[in-house]
C-alpha cells in the first residue's frame, strides 16, 4: 500500500474545510481517508455525506461541494450542467468493486456460470419466461429460480446490466431488489433457490452464509474458464466483466485550495491500503501514481489558466 507521506510535517498549518458527498458505495473509502487525514492536517474539517451518486452529482454540478464520490462515471446531462455552471472537474478512479454472483450454500448444482447464461437470466425478455433453473442449463433441477439484486436506482445495478445484458438498465423487473446489500445477503442466505449479485465486500463478510459462483466470460485473453472474484482476480482484470471502478470527482475551483490538493494527494497515496481495509479492491500501484500526475497537471493547469 502507499504510505504517501513525502510532504509530511510542512502541512500541519493547513486549515479550511472540504465538503464531500455522493455514493454510499464509495463512502467507506472516503471516510477512511478523511479519518487518516485528520492526523495529517488536524485543522482541515473534512465532511462526507451519503446522498447517492445522483444526489452528490446534483450538488457537485451546482458547485455546492468540492468533491463527489461516484460509483459510476458522470453522465452527459450532468457534464452539461457542470459546464453551464462554469465548473470543470477531473475524474479520478480510486478502487475497484467486484460484483459477486452468489447462491445459497446448499445449492449443489451451480458450479459456475457464463456471462451468456447470466444474460439469459437477467435480460428483459426473461421476465415471466425464465422461471426454472433447468431453463438455463438442462442438467440443473426443475425448480423455481429466485432472483435477488441491487435496487434499480443504484450504480451497482447500472453496472451489472451494462456488463451482463450489454445495455444499462435493461433487465427483467421481477426480482427482489434492495438498496441495502445486507438485505440481499439475508434473502439469498435463507432461500435455497436463490441467485443474486452484490458488492464483493458483502460476500467477503458473509462467506459462511453464501456461495460465490465463478463467472466465465468465455474470453481467453483475460484468464480462462470460470473465475471467482478475489483480490487478485479483480486487480489483474481477470475477473471480468463484473469488476467496476469507483471514482471521485474534484471541482477545479476547489483544486486551487491547498488543503484540497493535499487531501486529494493523500487520498491517492492511501486509497490502496484503505480501500482494502474497508472491503474493496485496490488498483495496481502504478495506476495511483498515474492518477496523481494527472491530478497535479489538472491542479497546476487550472492555476495557470487563471
Amino acid at each position: 500500500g502507499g504510505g504517501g507521506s513525502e510532504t509530511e510535517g510542512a502541512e500541519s498549518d493547513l486549515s479550511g474545510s472540504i465538503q464531500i458527498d455522493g455514493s454510499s458505495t464509495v463512502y467507506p473509502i472516503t471516510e477512511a481517508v478523511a479519518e487518516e487525514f485528520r492526523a495529517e492536517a488536524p485543522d482541515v474539517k473534512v465532511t462526507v455525506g451519503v446522498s447517492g451518486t445522483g444526489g452528490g452529482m446534483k450538488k457537485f454540478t451546482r458547485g455546492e461541494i468540492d468533491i463527489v464520490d461516484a460509483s459510476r462515471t458522470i453522465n452527459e446531462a450532468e457534464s452539461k450542467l457542470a459546464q453551464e455552471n462554469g465548473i470543470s472537474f477531473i475524474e479520478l478512479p480510486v478502487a475497484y468493486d467486484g460484483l459477486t454472483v452468489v447462491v445459497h450454500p446448499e445449492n449443489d448444482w451451480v458450479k459456475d456460470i457464463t456471462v451468456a447464461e447470466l444474460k439469459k437470466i437477467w435480460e428483459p425478455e426473461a421476465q415471466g419466461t425464465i422461471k426454472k433453473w433447468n431453463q438455463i442449463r438442462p442438467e440443473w433441477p426443475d425448480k423455481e429460480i429466485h432472483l435477488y439484486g441491487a435496487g434499480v436506482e443504484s450504480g451497482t445495478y447500472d453496472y451489472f446490466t451494462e456488463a451482463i445484458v450489454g445495455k444499462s438498465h435493461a433487465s427483467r423487473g421481477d426480482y427482489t431488489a434492495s438498496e441495502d446489500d445486507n438485505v440481499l445477503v439475508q434473502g439469498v442466505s435463507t432461500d435455497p433457490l436463490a441467485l443474486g449479485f452484490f458488492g464483493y465486500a458483502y460476500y467477503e463478510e458473509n462467506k459462511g452464509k453464501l456461495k460465490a459462483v465463478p463467472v466465465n466470460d468465455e474470453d481467453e485473453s483475460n484468464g480462462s474458464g470460470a473465475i471467482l472474484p478475489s483480490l487478485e482476480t479483480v486487480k489483474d482484470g481477470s475477473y471480468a466483466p463484473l469488476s467496476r471502478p469507483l471514482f471521485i470527482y474534484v471541482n477545479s475551483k476547489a483544486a486551487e485550495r491547498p488543503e484540497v490538493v493535499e487531501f486529494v494527494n493523500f487520498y491517492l497515496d492511501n486509497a490502496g491500503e484503505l480501500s482494502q481495509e474497508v472491503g474493496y479492491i485496490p488498483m495496481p500501484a502504478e495506476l495511483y501514481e498515474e492518477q496523481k500526475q494527472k491530478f497535479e497537471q489538472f491542479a497546476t493547469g487550472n492555476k495557470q489558466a487563471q
Partner: protein
Amino acid sequence: MTNSDLNRYKDKAFQVFGIFCTFIGLVVLAIFLIGILIDGLGRIDWDFLVSLPSRRASRAGILTAWAGTLWILVLTTIIAFPLGVAAGVYLEEYARKTKLANFLEINIANLAGVPSIIYGLLGLEIFVRQMKLGPSLLAGALTLSLLILPIVIVTTREAIKAVPRSIREASFALGASKWQTIWNQVLPASFGGILTGVILALSRAVGEAAPLIVIGALAYVPFTPSSPLDEFTVLPIQIFNWTSRPQAAFLTNAAAAIIVLLLITFLLNGIAVYLRNRQQKKVKW
C-alpha cells in the same frame, strides 16, 4: 344464559382481550429492547460516546451524532412548539367553522400524510438553497419542524377542545379578553394533552433520517457543531449508515447507537410523562 350474563361475559372477554393486546404491545417492545440491548449494550462505553466516526468499528464513536441530535431536538422544539401551538389555538379558538378554517383543517391533515422524504426535498429547495442556510443544523431543524407541525397542530386542537366551555365562560365573565382566557385558562388546562402530542411528534423527528440525508446532513462529520449554522450529523443517519455496512461489527455499533437514541427519547418521554401526570392530578372534571 340471561342477557345480563351475556353482557358480563362480553365484559370479561373484552377485559381479557384488553390485557392480551396490552401484553402483545409490551412483549413486542421487550423483544426489541432485549434484542437491541444484547447486541449493543456491551459496545457502549465512554470512548464510544466521545469518539469521532471511524472506518474501524471498534474505534468508531457517536460524539458528533448525539451532539447533532441534541442540537436538532432543541432547535426543532424551539421552532415547532410555539408555531404548532399557535396555529392550533388559532384554528380552535379564532377561526372555528369559517371557510378558511375548513380549508386549513383539510390542508393540515394532508400535510400530516406527506412522506418525510418530500419534506426533505422541500427543505433542500427552500432552506438550503433559497435561504442559503446550507446543510446546516438550522436548515435541518426547520425541515423537521415543518414535518412535525401538523401533528403538533392537530393534537393541540384536540387538547384545547377538551377544555369545558364553562371554564371559558367563567373567564370571559370576569372581564378576561379572549387571549387572556386562552393564555390563563385554556392553555394551562390543555397543557398535558398538548405536551403528549409534541413529545410524540418530537420523538418522530428524532428518529428521522431520510429527509435529513436529502437536505445534505452528512455521515462523516469529525467535529461537534457549535452554532446553528454548522454542518451536522444525527444518530439515525449514523445508524442507517452503519446498518448498511458489510462488517458485522458495525451492526453492533448500530445497536449501541440505537440504545443511545432510545435513551434520549426515554428522557424526553419521561419529562413529558412527569408533566402530564402532574397536570392530570390537578385537572379533573
